[in-house]
């Protein structure tokens, strides 16, 4: 191939490869979706069936996952909280307060 110098041929070959690769990628995305649905379905089923059993069993063993979900949704709450607390502290008499961060310790 490296020897081909016919512009038309080059054009067609390249275009064909680009289409093939992107079409292949679209198949890959469909496969991901398929796996996602399987995993999601099985998880949902599992969650319904074993939720009360699994969770307490896992909780003491792994403190990490406990920390993660706690952090995400709280982010926005925290900011509101910071403002509220700042105001409260200022009402308390401190004049120059800045709250750098409110961290929930795991």
């Amino acid at each position: 191939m490296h020897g081909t110098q016919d512009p038309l041929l080059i054009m067609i070959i390249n275009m064909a490869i680009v289409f093939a690769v992107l079409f292949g990628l679209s198949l890959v995305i469909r496969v991901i979706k398929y796996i996602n649905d399987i995993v999601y379905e099985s998880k949902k089923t599992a969650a319904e069936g074993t939720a009360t059993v699994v969770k307490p069993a896992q909780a003491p063993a792994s403190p990490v996952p406990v920390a993660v979900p706690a952090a995400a949704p709280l982010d926005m709450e925290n900011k509101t909280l910071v403002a509220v607390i700042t105001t409260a502290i200022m009402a308390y008499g401190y004049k120059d307060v800045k709250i750098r961060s409110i961290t929930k310790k795991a």
Partner: protein
Amino acid sequence: MDGFFGAFAVAIHAVWSDSGYFVMNMNNIIMMIVGAVLLYLAIGKGFEPLLLTPIAFGCILANIPNNGFDEGVMNAISMGIHMEIFPPLIFMGVGAMTDFGPLIANPNTLLLGAAAQFGVFVALYGAMAMGFTSSQAAAIGIIGGADGPTAIYLATKLAPEILGAIAVAAYSYMSLVPLIQPPVMRLLTTKKEREIQMGQMRHVSKFEKIVFPIVTTIAISLLLPAISSLIGMLMLGNLFRESCVTDRLSDTAQNALINTVTIFLALGTGLTMSGDAFLKLATIKIIVLGLVAFIVGTAAGVLLGKVMCYLSGGKINPLIGSAGVSAVPMAARVSQIEGQKAKPGNYLLMHAMGPNVAGVIGTAVAAGTMLAMFGG
């Protein structure tokens, strides 16, 4: 005292005769005017100012005679260009800023992203017909991909001697997308087609968004290893974004890091635009070919959009096809605007984002195929 004034005159004369005013040639002057015009377009008209401003400034600096840029910071920046360091870093930031959700929701839009690459190959064909080498033609064609970093990456590898012209053409046309595309889009579509409203997009899960960049990296890099650093960095940046546990890295990738690299890449690109290298007939050819590539790419995207519209029983608005040339997010906005002109309330933006980001991948793939054919 006479000796004093004599020495004084000699000294002044020496400074003057060493200065650029004395040595400067007509090409330098023309290029400074080119730089000034680009600055006007960037700042006065708002055409891709983040890139055209430093490119234009670099163009001016490159045409200061005896500027000594063969050492110091300007040399370091030029080496960064020459060593292909900057485009993948920009792509990491782009990845961190990109939401591939619309593409994942509707993978068919990848085909629109592929169709829009037709402009690349038509320009390649034209360039070869005009007498450019195949490597140069490939680098010229990529202008039609409307992805600056990919164009610079490919030009650096295949035809560094025309890097300046390619970069300027790419960024100029990218900024002109709102002027170039609408006539083509209206010419090739009926009003009825433009009025098509597209349904709500399906929800894309976090799992899909995280797996997508990983699998895409592997699948494409294996097939086209020459672009593995481009695709890899694009997808690593996207993974930083979607993983939700690396926000620090995502934030730096899409701010401090990409801004710093943008300054260097754009300034360094401008530095390649010395008058003697830029002011050639080839440059005008490149600029014309770039425009052809843009128009053909837009048309190919719209035409495949029409085909998909027909095949889907009228569910797909062909206007989103033109977004496949990338120029994120401007081309998608053009689709949105044209859709709304045909029918107020027609909201195509999210649907056009699919082909839009597909066009980024498509252009990288096109670069990969051309590197596989013409590269080292």
